[in-house]
């Protein structure tokens, strides 16, 4: 089911949690709502579920205006951050509860439970109480319960944040698989860019309740629309070099390093800009643009990260292969690839190239 948010605003007293958000979530896809803490992610989820009433704007499910509908009439399944499994009920009773409320006959309920047990792989846990389950198992039960009444939308609120790192990776793939198998429109709230990128079809990136960009993860990474987006995605974080426009060229602050400007946009002389460069877009040799001095080297998995100075006062990081002979203090020619290099306005964060 397609979900459309139209100019959605939510205020809590004086604070604006969500500010004029208009976005469409495609049917049958897994959309991640991503952003730093306090950006209104969970509020958006609660607006879609109907738990939190809107201040203004409208929410459509497949052209039907559901803005004023209570949660139970929206055909949604909700997985809470702390799962909120009923502690006094067994796994079986937990999953059956929403179906009982819908007066589904018992035979049908048990058949559905079997189906769901298989989907989320908890068949052997049916007789247990939530307190006897591990975090990952509780998570699966919570998903099964959310799917029990065959909702058209599945909403997950930071579902992996209560799990340890290793389990998180596994559950991430599980959620992806469950979503693929059930083909249900899914909204997934997270603050972890890596998590969002690895499982979502689409990512909605927010900052202070305002939509920054909605795109597929690869697109978001390769073509960020503004500095915040470029900065939020990627590990290590993108390099940001401050500079100015000077004689139609980019002049980096604290240096005489200048290179040609490749943009159709009109730039003012003296305009302050940020040149953002992904660590993997930096390499030694080729057609060097400037010279860098190695400050430090770190091992990072199979690659090594080099921190080097640019001009007198700026620094950046780049990947080199482990065999690279660069030593600390050594100068080397720095070249940039065509991809992963962006030019932003220093104040508005708007992208120029």
């Amino acid at each position, binding site marked *: 089911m397609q979900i459309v948010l139209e100019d959605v605003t939510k205020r809590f007293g004086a604070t604006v949690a969500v500010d004029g958000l208009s976005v469409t979530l495609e049917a049958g896809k897994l959309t991640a709502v991503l952003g730093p803490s306090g950006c209104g992610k969970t509020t958006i989820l609660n607006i879609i*579920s109907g*738990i939190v009433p809107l201040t203004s704007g409208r929410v459509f499910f497949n052209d039907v205006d559901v803005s004023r509908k*209570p*949660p*139970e009439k929206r055909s*949604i*399944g*909700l997985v*809470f951050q*702390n799962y*909120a499994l*009923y*502690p*006094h009920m067994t796994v079986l009773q937990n999953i059956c*509860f*929403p179906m009982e*409320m*819908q007066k589904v006959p018992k035979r049908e309920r048990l058949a559905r439970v079997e189906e769901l047990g298989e989907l989320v792989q908890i068949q052997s846990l049916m007789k247990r*109480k*939530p*307190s006897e389950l591990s975090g990952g198992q509780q998570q699966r039960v919570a998903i099964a*319960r959310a799917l029990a*009444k065959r909702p058209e939308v599945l909403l997950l609120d930071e579902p992996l944040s209560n799990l340890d790192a290793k389990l998180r990776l596994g559950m991430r793939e599980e959620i992806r698989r469950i979503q693929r198998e059930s083909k249900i429109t899914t909204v997934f709230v997270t603050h972890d860019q890596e998590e969002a990128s690895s499982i979502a079809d689409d990512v909605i990136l927010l900052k202070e309740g305002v939509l920054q960009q909605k795109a597929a993860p690869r697109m978001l990474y390769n073509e960020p629309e503004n500095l915040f987006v470029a900065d939020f995605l990627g590990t290590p974080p993108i390099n940001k070099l401050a500079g100015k426009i000077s004689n139609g060229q980019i002049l980096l602050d604290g240096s005489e390093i200048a290179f040609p400007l490749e943009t159709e946009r009109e730039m003012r002389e003296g305009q302050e800009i940020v040149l953002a460069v992904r660590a993997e877009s930096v390499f030694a040799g080729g057609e060097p643009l400037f010279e860098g001095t190695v400050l430090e080297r770190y091992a990072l998995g199979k690659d090594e990260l080099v921190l080097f100075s640019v001009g007198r006062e700026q620094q950046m990081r780049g990947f080199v292969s482990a065999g690279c002979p660069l030593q600390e203090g050594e100068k080397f020619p720095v070249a940039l690839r065509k991809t992963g290099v962006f030019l932003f306005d220093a104040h508005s964060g708007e992208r120029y190239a």
Partner: protein
Amino acid sequence: MRKSKAEAEQKQIFFGEPLLYLLPFLIGLLIFTVYPFLNALLISFKENYNLMTGAFTGFGWGSYSRIFSDANFINGLKNTALYVLIVVPVSTVLSLLAASLLNQKVKLSGLFQTAYFVPMVTSVVAVGLVWKWMFNYDYGLLNYFLSFFGLAKINWLNNPAYNLPALIIFGIWNKMPLTIILLLAGYQNINPQYYVAARVDGAKPRNIFFRITLPLLAPTIGLTLVVNTISSSMVFMELFPLFNGNPGSAYSLYTIVYYLYDMFYNQWRLGLAAASAVVLFLIVMVLTIIQLYIQRNWQNY
């Protein structure tokens, strides 16, 4: 391996140290609870015991056979049983209702919470005198309310048939505040997320109450049942303001503790008083054990 500092320090605590900390409480317990209890047990078996001289003629079951053939004691057992059987469940249900209303964030809920706790901080006798007026035949509020429904006036305090109902009504009102406090505490322990989850699952308020709230409150309800059963088995004080210190208007509203009091202070028959105390103790103990046994399965997660 070297012992850690904490471990080394722990070693120096000698065996009696915890006892030392407990001593102030234990001394009080020994003097005011254990000794009187054992002494009462002893007295209940002494024949023809004289408190002043300490003389007695031998040990036996005489006091017990005498109280069980005393119509007043049997009357006391019956009245106490009826009182407990009605006051405990009714006050629990009413308190549950009040607590669930108080738990909601409504206007003036703070005021209501305070109002409901007033009976707890006022003396039974003072409140009893107020209730005496409420029960008054000619001017009482209760009879006034009955008149709204076209019902005849009831002579609550002077017609022996209505003495027990009056006592029960007063008792229910008296038991409610503590029960409400305990239940409210139980309510606060329920994660509100369960209610959101249940709402999303399509549960109606009635479903939510019976399927979520009640099971999660069960351990607290169990506690209030035990506490109230014990305290209402000892019903006694309530009689004084309502019936001028008599066990009902026609001396027909004995309770076990009133009988005990009567035997001790009015009749000076200490053996009978002690025997009735022991019987009350056994009844309360058995009731509590049965309740705990039943409620064992109420804590279900």
